[in-house]
Structure formats: structure tokens, C-alpha cells
């Protein structure tokens, strides 16, 4: 098994933290993993991408030419980075910002992540909704496992945000389940 996940979005949307969480969760369930970022130097408002490899074999290259799945968080991501996705791959799109469903030879999960985060009342959970959808859509990990890894990654003082994050993960996973039907 080898999953190459590519993520892209605006600085501040939590692209890299989300990518680190997926890789860390992969490590916690016994996979070999790598996380590799490319981002512009701005503190916020720049552009952020990362590549995560999850495999039960050798990681080898931490970069990916043809990702098997993508999480695209804003319209620029869909415009600029969607093309290399493998045929039949999974594209998780933040439909709050990308209203038009991308068409192609791949599965698409439209996740209104900003809306979900707004309903939860914590705008910083946008990335968690997308991770939840990706996890359920690929079937690679349970959102409970992801939440466990998040708790382990977060400093204690942020644990009060865990319920919101868990909520967003679950809401995303409900949408992700539909991709596996």
C-alpha cells in the first residue's frame, strides 16, 4: 500500500499543520511516513503546499509526481495543482471556497469546510473537516485515531480545543463516507 497525498491552500488555512497531523497519525498506526512542505516566506497570506507519503513499504521519494489523493483548500489550489492527480484518485475540495465541482477522471468530495467550521463556532477547524473527509474517503484511518494523534501533538494548553476539532473531523468523515459507497 502506498498513498501519496498532496495538499495546497493559503497560508493560515492550516495546510501544513493538517499535513503533519495526517503523517503523524499514519506513524501512530504503524505506517512509514514522510511530510515535505513547500511554502512561500510570508507569515500569512502566502501559499502553502505539502506532500505526505504513507506506506507499509519503503518511503523512498518524499516528493510525488502523481499523487493518489489531494486536499485542495482554495480556488488557486484547484486551478494550479489538480492536474497531476492519478486517474481514479481522490480529490477533497473545500467547497465553501470552490463552489464549482472539478470534473475529471477522479473521485471528488465536496466538503463545505468553512461552513462546517462556522457552525461549530471555531474557524480554525476548517482543516480538520477536510482531514475527516479524506480519512473516511480513502479508508486509511479512523478519525478517532486522527483525533488521538492530534491530542498527542497539541500542547496541553490547547486541549480545550479538542472537542471542536473532533467535531469537525466527524462532520468531514460523514461526507467522506459517501465516497466509499
Amino acid at each position: 500500500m502506498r498513498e501519496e497525498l498532496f495538499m495546497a491552500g493559503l497560508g493560515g488555512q492550516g495546510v501544513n499543520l493538517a499535513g503533519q497531523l495526517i503523517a503523524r497519525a499514519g506513524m501512530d498506526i504503524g505506517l512509514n511516513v514522510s511530510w515535505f512542505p513547500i511554502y512561500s516566506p510570508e507569515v500569512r497570506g502566502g501559499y502553502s503546499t505539502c506532500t505526505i507519503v504513507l506506506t507499509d513499504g519503503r518511503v523512498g521519494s518524499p516528493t510525488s509526481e502523481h499523487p493518489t489523493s489531494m486536499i485542495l483548500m482554495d480556488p488557486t489550489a484547484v486551478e494550479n495543482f489538480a492536474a497531476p492527480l492519478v486517474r481514479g484518485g481522490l480529490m477533497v475540495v473545500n467547497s465553501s471556497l470552490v463552489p464549482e465541482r472539478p470534473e475529471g477522471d477522479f473521485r471528488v468530495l465536496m466538503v463545505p469546510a468553512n461552513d462546517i467550521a462556522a457552525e461549530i463556532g471555531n474557524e480554525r477547524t476548517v482543516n480538520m473537516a477536510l482531514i475527516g473527509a479524506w480519512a473516511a474517503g480513502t479508508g486509511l484511518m479512523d478519525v478517532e485515531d486522527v483525533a488521538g494523534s492530534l491530542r498527542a501533538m497539541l500542547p496541553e494548553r490547547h486541549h480545550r480545543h479538542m472537542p471542536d476539532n473532533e467535531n469537525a473531523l466527524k462532520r468531514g468523515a460523514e461526507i467522506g463516507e459517501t465516497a466509499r459507497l
Partner: protein
Amino acid sequence: MSQQRRKVFISGNEATAEGGIAGGCRHFFGYPITPQNKIPEYMAEELPKIGGVYLQAESEVAAINMVYGAASAGARVMTTSSSPGIALMQEGLSYCLGSELPCVLVNMVRGGPGLGNIGPAQSDYWLATRGCGHGDGRCITLTPYSVQELHDFTAGAFEIADRYRNPVMVLADAILASMMEPCELIPRRDLPAPDRPWAVGPHDPDQRERNIVNSLWVEFDVMEAVSQRLEERYRQAAEEITDWDEFGSDEPQVMICAYGISARICESAVMQANDELGIRTRLIRPKTVFPFPTEPIRSWAERVDAALVVELSMGQFVEDVRLAVEGRCPVDLLGRAGGNVPTVGDVVEKIREAALRAGVARV
């Protein structure tokens, strides 16, 4: 009883810094430069907690001379930087070599020449293995290819530096610096002070003569003796610590030589070439490039039909490979520069081309 290693998910920079601490480093001098700033940041946070010294110098020139001073006084000392910063350190590094001072440098190589950019590169291969300032001295150069190896090699570099009384450089790149992977950390422990009877410092004049650390040798014969001593140590190091790894087919038609991040990409390419193209391919990956693993490369060159070198430069490492191969098989180069990295597909295509030319693969 040795403590268990703790498995963490950590960046290459952090793993390098923690490797330094595990290797006994308690003195760090540096000056900020991307893509390795997380190392001084980590050291600034951690060293004061364990009785160490972190100091941000006013420049790389100052940092390497602080390293010289600390090493002269017997401290396990380290500095880290990236290409233009390492270039600035060359004079001080040569003085460290001339004064036979153990110390550790890490170079997270970025695109160049000039100020270049902050992308990954391997274009400081000559700087590391041939440069090190003026004179006959050379840096023992280690080339990790994962976050785990960054940690382990940096920790091990201190013992190597002491064993050969010579600076050791850990040569990596911007991808290895910033990527995160699982890493099993060597437990921190208090190591005994390094055995350096030659170090300067307070002493009882009745017990011994004063020590002088110096690289100015006016007498030709004395200076030559220093160079001969260094050369003898490099010969000894070649016997004792030359290290490499191999991966892929046991009966290869094509040999790939690559180190560091390029070797990671080549691992994936070797799997594809073997499994999907049916071209039997083997990766030879140096973990040390000075001393260089000449023997395994020469030995495989006898048996393969073609060799391919992959590096993030226009062709530096390839020269050492050609010196090892000595014409036993053709050696192709896939070199990218300026922060660009070949894809696995690019490498597989070059393997196919090399195999075709050697007549060992069909179109």
C-alpha cells in the same frame, strides 16, 4: 543500562539539533540563514537548560572562529549554516584543519552560486569534499538521507571528529532540513569530557607545559609534517569509517549512484525500474563522501553495463564516481540545479536510456 530510544515525528532540522545534543555538543555558535534556522532556534531553547552555551554570532565568520576557540579549549562544539554561510566560514575552517581541531559543521545546502535561493541543492559537494578553505586539509563528510540519519550522523560526528582530530561536515539539503519523518531519538546523557590533552586552559605549570593551539608553522618541514599527519588520518579514516548502503537487484544491469535526498528519489526509481521495466537496477548510496566508497562502486562497475549518477548539481559528485569507475562502464549524469529536483519518472527514464544504449533493454 542504556535507555530506550523514543520515537518522535520531527523535522530534519530538529533531529539534527537533537543529534548534536545527544552527541555531546554543549557549545553552539551560528548565524541565521534559511533553510536551517530551526537548528539554532532549537539550540537556543535547549542548550541553556542543560548547562550549555548558545550564542548567535554577528556573522558566520565570527561563528566559525568561536568554534575554533571552543574546540581549542576542549569543548564539543558545533555550528550549522547553509551554502553562502558555509562559504563565509572557509577561512576559519581551514584554520580549524591546520590546528587539528575536532568540531562539527552542518550544511543544509541551498541553490547557488551567489545568494542563490532557498531550494534544495547538492551543489556544495566540492565545497565540502574539496573546499574547506585553503591548504591540504579536508573535512570528513557525512551524507545522511533521512531525518533519522540526520540525527544519528550528527550525533556520531563528534566521536569521529575527536578520533581524527579533524572537522566533520554533515552535508544535507533544504528538503531533508524541512521534511518531517519518524525518528528514534538517542537519549541525552552526560558524556565525560573529551580526552584532549592538547587543549588550552587552566593548568598547573608543575604538571605540564602550556599547550598552544596554532596553525602557523614557519618551518617548511614542520608544516609538511602537519600535512602528512592529516593525510595519514584521512587514510586511516578511509579504512575505518567509509560507509555506504546498497538497494535493489543483486544482479544489476544498471548501477545508480546517489547520496542524500537524491538517493531517496532513486530508491523509488530503482523499485520501478526493477518491477515495471524489468531493468535490473541497484542503488549504491554513499553515507560518507570523504572518505569515499570507491571500492563498492568500482566492484559493481565491473559487473554492470551502465552507471547513472543523480545529483542536485550540474555535476560534482559524478567526478568522484567516475574516478572510482575508471572507465569500467559508461557513466551518465542526471543533474538538476537551482532548487529543482528530478521526479522519480525522470530518473526511471534515464535508467531506461542508459540501459538502451548499453543494449540491455528493449524500447
